[in-house]
């Protein structure tokens, strides 16, 4: 991340300085205020979901969910600590239900439970790859945009989308197994 971000940002800012020097600072500052607005929006979304998650946790619903998904979890992550397993299950359920907003706070909670050192662990990498391979099953935003653009059948991309998603996700899981080995 250090190398990627620095190289791209430095190159882009240098190019912008050459093209339009007055705008460099305002682009940077606008980006920061955009980030602040975005973070506040996320704060609202996380507020709702973390609240609901906590209610579900207190009445043992999350524990039941992680018992339901324990076989899948065991296959992907090996022996997880109970709290981490709960959050991983919550993340999986949110993804399958297509609630991307709820998937993020549960994934962050799970990763905070798993990671102690400065190098990402195998299970952290697995959780990240599953989420970053685009596990969302029904692309509601895209279907909405197509409908708005006057498509005759906005949801006819569902099947190819499902196959492409499944392919990417399966390849991701396989590559994590290849790079890090089996779960312990």
């Amino acid at each position: 991340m250090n190398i990627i971000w620095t190289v791209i940002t430095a190159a882009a800012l240098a190019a912008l300085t050459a093209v339009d020097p007055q705008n460099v600072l305002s682009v940077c500052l606008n980006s920061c205020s955009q980030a602040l607005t975005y973070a506040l929006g996320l704060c609202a979304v996380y507020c709702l979901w973390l609240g609901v998650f906590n209610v579900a946790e207190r009445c043992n619903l999350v524990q039941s969910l992680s018992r339901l998904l324990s076989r899948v979890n065991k296959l992907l992550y090996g022996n997880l600590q109970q709290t981490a397993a709960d959050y991983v299950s919550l993340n999986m359920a949110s993804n399958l239900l297509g609630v991307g907003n709820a998937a993020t706070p549960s994934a962050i909670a799970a990763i905070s439970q798993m990671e102690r050192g400065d190098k990402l662990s195998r299970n952290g990498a697995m959780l990240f790859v599953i989420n970053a391979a685009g596990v969302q099953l029904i692309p509601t935003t895209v279907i909405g945009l197509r409908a708005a653009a006057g498509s005759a059948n906005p949801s006819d991309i569902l099947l190819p989308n499902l196959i492409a998603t499944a392919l990417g996700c399966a390849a991701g899981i396989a590559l994590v197994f290849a790079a890090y080995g089996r779960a312990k």
Partner: protein
Amino acid sequence: MNYVVPCLIVAVLVYGLVRRVPVYNAFVDGARKSFDLSLSIFPYLAAIFIMVNALHASGLDVYVTQVFAPPFQLLGVPSEVVQLVLLRPFTGSGSLAILSDVYAKYGADSYVGRCASVIMGSSETVFYVASVYFAKTSVRRTGWAIPIALFCNLLGAVAACALCKIM
């Protein structure tokens, strides 16, 4: 589909009531953590947004797209959607804007339009996810995680273009 999430929320609250959990207190305790969480995400978001906006404002994104179009065409990705494939890992809102452009230019039901839709639907903003997920941890070295995720998104894009030809 419109009913799944609302029903789920109501069901959790009602179940909490049945199990005699102090639902109100539990909700507030959980919700309290959101402020701290979004605060720790903020600097990472700022870094990503500076990179994306600088790329866009300098016109470097268009240039990079032109350079990368031929190799992508070899993989079966039409040049009209190369920009989407390249920018998708960095920005969600930016790639949605590109998607709308593609619809306006070529139509939502054209081959290019459907390719772009499936690429958008089957991929994720990898760099954004990476910065947000690791914000609250001590992780500094992510090893294979980001390359693997980027490769999967590329694979998804190539598969999307192939699938849209036959479906």
